[in-house]
């Protein structure tokens, strides 16, 4: 096939992105969990026939954008494309090939052109519940963490696999909502399939390869040029974090040479018999997100950008655990990856990096029975402040590196038996420096029902977010139950009247004050 000219390429690419954006709108409006529709904890991606990412919805979160193409590739390995038919829909939530934990269900639909697979429409979304322990870090193995769906076919010829659906419904606490969210995703991949086939019709394309190759080659060349602009060398950074009984060590070496970046996490703590392990797919997603944000933010995400990036995390470490490690709280671990890379590249790119954010996402899951006898399961998100940059203070209370909004107080109080006493900034929590870190927030939540299970995902309670170039660390966070510090690595039981204080950490400062 002849190479596409730069005008046609732009036209087709624009249309493919709008197809994926259309699908994202459909998910937001049809999904049931507050995760998808209020917190945007989902993504839509289009890949070529090889499972290489071509387009993703504007505004989706970095981790999913990074992992979803890998999910498609793993699915192709498990289910030969030759056995696929038009209209098929596939499903999985395997953490190693998915997003790193069971709660995200991925849906994939092959897009056919003239009898063969031309590409894949893929979505992933955090369902309200997947069974198992409620996202507890106490799980020692994956088997404790919920219902596991290996790569499987969900639909053929418009007929859904009722056995799979019945098993799924039986194993989760919120069968209607979880199934509803699966249907929201099925609608989205079907929409992408339709729009992409129309695009191929409009531009008389017999597949997506020509477009994909052009996008990848051009993106790769530009990314190599940007990497070549970073001073060659080996840049290292080591950081300690809260860990479990003992702190964790995170280590990275970023080697810049010949227009390529080699990122190596050797020296990072070994995997743990707790749900804090971050699968390699997630580690990789956070790594490429960081390098792209630093070096080539203006080009839409695609596989070509990542070809010049090589990543190694030692097998058996918390950044590359072996099956069947428990992985439920992988975000808190994986969200340190950008901080490590910023720290390593600070000397090389002082004007581009930022000090550490206080905001690996904080989460509180609660589940139980409300005073009226209805069972409930809710998840609340909390964000800390971001780190300061060379010429800018950190931002207060904002999701970073993820992009998950907090649930509105009025919605939280309506959907769960809680009364929120305050939600306010912690003005002094940003790290001091020439530029200050962003502030965290403090929220006090009173439980209005007895015997409520509460599980937390927290970080930076022992170690605040470090500053850069002499900037101070951000204030550490805290979780208190009726004023007493709680062990957030263990499930807690809340009684009626228990007050939970959640104070998120501030970001690190930049430069001496």
């Amino acid at each position: 096939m002849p190479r596409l000219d730069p005008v046609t390429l732009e036209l087709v690419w624009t249309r493919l992105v709008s197809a994926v954006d259309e699908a994202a709108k459909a998910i937001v409006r049809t999904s049931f969990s507050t995760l998808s529709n209020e917190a945007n904890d989902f993504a839509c991606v289009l890949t070529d026939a090889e499972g290489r990412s071509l387009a993703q919805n504007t505004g989706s979160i970095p981790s999913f954008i990074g992992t979803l193409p890998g999910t498609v590739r793993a699915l192709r390995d498990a289910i030969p494309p030759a056995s696929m038919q038009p209209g098929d829909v596939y499903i999985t939530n395997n953490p190693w090939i998915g997003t790193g934990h069971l709660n995200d269900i991925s849906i994939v639909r092959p897009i056919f052109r003239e009898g063969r697979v031309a590409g894949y429409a893929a979505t992933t979304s955090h369902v309200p519940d997947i069974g198992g322990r409620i996202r507890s870090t106490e799980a020692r193995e994956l088997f404790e963490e919920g219902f596991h769906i290996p790569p499987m076919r969900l639909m053929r010829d418009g007929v859904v696999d009722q056995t799979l659906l019945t098993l799924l419904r039986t194993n989760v606490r919120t069968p209607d909502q979880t199934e509803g969210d699966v249907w929201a995703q099925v609608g989205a991949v079907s929409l992408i399939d339709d729009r992409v086939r129309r695009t191929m019709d409009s531009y008389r394309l017999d597949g997506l390869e020509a477009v994909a190759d052009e996008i990848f080659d051009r993106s790769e060349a530009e990314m190599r040029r940007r990497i070549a602009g970073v001073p060659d060398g080996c840049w290292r950074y080591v950081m300690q974090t809260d860990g479990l009984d003992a702190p964790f060590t995170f280590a990275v070496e970023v080697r810049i040479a010949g227009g390529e970046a080699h990122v190596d996490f050797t020296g990072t703590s070994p995997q743990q018999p707790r749900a804090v392990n971050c699968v390699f797919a997630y580690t990789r997603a956070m790594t490429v997100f960081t390098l792209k944000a630093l070096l080539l933010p203006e080009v839409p995400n695609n596989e070509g950008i990542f070809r010049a990036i090589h990543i190694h995390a030692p097998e058996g470490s918390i950044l590359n655990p072996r099956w069947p490690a428990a992985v439920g709280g992988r975000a808190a671990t994986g969200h340190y990856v950008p901080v490590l890379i910023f720290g390593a590249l600070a000397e090389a790119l002082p004007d581009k990096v930022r000090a550490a954010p206080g905001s690996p996402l904080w989460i509180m899951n609660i589940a139980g029975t409300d005073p009226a006898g209805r069972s409930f399961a809710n998840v609340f998100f909390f964000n800390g402040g971001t780190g300061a940059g060379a010429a800018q203070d950190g931002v207060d209370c904002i999701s970073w590196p993820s992009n998950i909004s907090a649930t509105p107080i009025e919605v939280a109080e309506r959907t769960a038996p809680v009364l929120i006493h305050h939600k306010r900034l912690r003005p002094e929590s940003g790290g001091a420096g020439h530029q200050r870190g962003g502030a965290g927030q403090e929220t006090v939540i009173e439980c209005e029902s007895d015997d409520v299970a509460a599980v937390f995902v927290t970080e930076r309670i022992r170690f605040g977010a470090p500053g850069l170039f002499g900037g101070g660390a951000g204030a550490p966070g805290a979780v208190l139950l009726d004023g007493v510090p709680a062990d957030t690595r263990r499930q807690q039981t809340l009684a009626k009247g228990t007050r939970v204080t959640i104070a998120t950490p501030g970001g690190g400062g930049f430069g001496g004050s």
Partner: protein
Amino acid sequence: MAATYSLGIDIGGTFTDIVAFDPLSGRAFIWKESTTPDDPARGVMAGIARLLGAHGIAPAQIGRVVHATTLFTNALIERKGARTGLITTAGFRDVLEIGRERKYELYDIFIEMPRPLVPRPWRREVPERLASDGTIVTPLDVAACVAEAGALVAEGVESLAIVFLHAYANPVHERTAAEAIAARFPSLSISLSSDIAPEIREYPRASTAVANAYVRPLSEIYLQRLEQEIAAAGIPGSLHLMLSNGGLTHVDEAKRAPVQLLESGPAAGALAGAWFGRNAGLERVLAFDMGGTTAKLALVDDGQPLVAWGFEAARERRFLRGSGLPIQIATVELIEIGAGGGSIARRSELSTLHVGPDSAGAQPGPACYARGGTEATVTDADLALGCLNADFFLGGAMAIDAPAAEAAVGRLAAALAVEPARAASGIQDVVNETMAGAARVAIAERGRVPHEYALMATGGAAPVHAWGVARKLGIRRVVCPPGAGAGSTIGMLMAPARVDRVASLNLPFAEADMAAIEETFARLENEAAPLVAATGADLARRDTRWLADMRYIGQGSEVTVAMPRPLSPEAVRAAFEAEYRRLFGRTPPGAAIQFVALRLSLSAPVPGAEGRLDLAAASGGTMLKGSRPVHFAEAGGMVGTPVYDRYALPPGFAAEGPAVFEENESTFVVGPGARIALLPDGSLVADMPEAT
């Protein structure tokens, strides 16, 4: 002397458009006056005097005045509103600053979030608390309210917003606080969240109430002054204001809740599209306005512009959703895109062709303006493609440097390593694709398909691009009304009086009492009717719409459903499920439904706002001016195309495309094979040939 004329005034950033319209004869006269930003009323009054003088209309003949303005939006963007304070529930003064905790751009490491309109020291807390069902958990401390308000007044605060948690469910604490504060500080302007935006979700509700407080003192002074000036000029007609929802209201309501006026100018543009669409007998219209910097799209169904129940003001980045201040006010739904005649075409980082959102604006402008612009713009490409006539730009009033446009396009072509002709057609194609993409997403969001719509082109550049955009969308019919430049002002004159009211109703469907819902609608209608009547509208011909925001329990966003009358559980469920299926294709199995809010929409025609428009009297000159080659993508290149003088088209004119119609403000370009007809109101309609 009969006061038959209506006067329309639209204050924009550069020009104040003024239209005098006689509904009896259909005659309309248009005048453009430079906007006087330091005192906008001055430019308005000068323009009115010139327009009336030029056409021999006496002030006493003006029966009513309709006004749209971007002043309040600009006050938000430029942060030039009142010194505003906030009183809120103890523990929650930072809600306004913390916002959604979400980035509007993922990869921008140096992202800036919008600053709150009220700084932290002026956000004060008082003891009070309601539960989510509106019951009182902690009684209001009235003395604390008065004390905090006093402290704010002492610091120079002029306007106050009161926002309590769950006030959408029960306004009692907000009202009690307001009464006590008003008694003590009668000159302090007070805005309540339960009054301005009684909807669940504390951040957008607070943002809306605060924005109202922020622009309210400005609106009181400005509207009072304009009203006085109009009276002093001897104009007997009363002043009406265009609302963001596409309806009219009277001055007192505008002063109470000026946040309703933020999008009044663009709403008027959408109304014009709706009005011309009705004239052309079209049920569904995609109103497409494209100027120098931006393009705006609005969907019009059944003659009514679609209304969204919220929008964003004062965005950090104009075209990025999530970067502005949320405003929960009924607003004609507009999609704004960084695509206009001045949009600059460049080689992207990946050596593809990018067009916009950067614009050369009016200064330096496109390369062909010869004002120093050297980069190729959309207008330069349009010129190179034969769509525009260098000798008849703005009716020949503006000299155009065609070689400069060609040179600019040539430089870009060399940078991209393509032929100049491909660069020129590519610029047009890419900017059309960008606009079509935005339209596609917006139409899909509503479960519609583009080919159900006709494209209505207004503004300087839309008639040039409408044909290409329609082809990309699969739209079969393109309409170009006359007098493209003054469309929005005309739309305003045709607007009905309209009031939208909302009441929160968080209730499972199974527990809903239809009689109680009917009572709520009746209460909302009783609130709305006097406001509509006060505009002079004809309540006997009112159009009352009962709507409900509903969803499946657990979902986070709602579907707005027209309620069947009379209400019955079966009919309501059927209406919801039908609307849900229309939007999303299927209903989920076994899920329960809930109400979230009830909405009342009341509109009634205003006397003088009907009748036909007579702008396009045939000039009697030569209809066919000549012909020139024009590029059409479907023909794969340039095609010899007849050029018509639009003012000289006789009644009943019909032709086959390709064709170009020139008028002073714009050029309507129609592709090969189109069937073209001139409608009695002066609109040109072009239908696609069957084969494309």
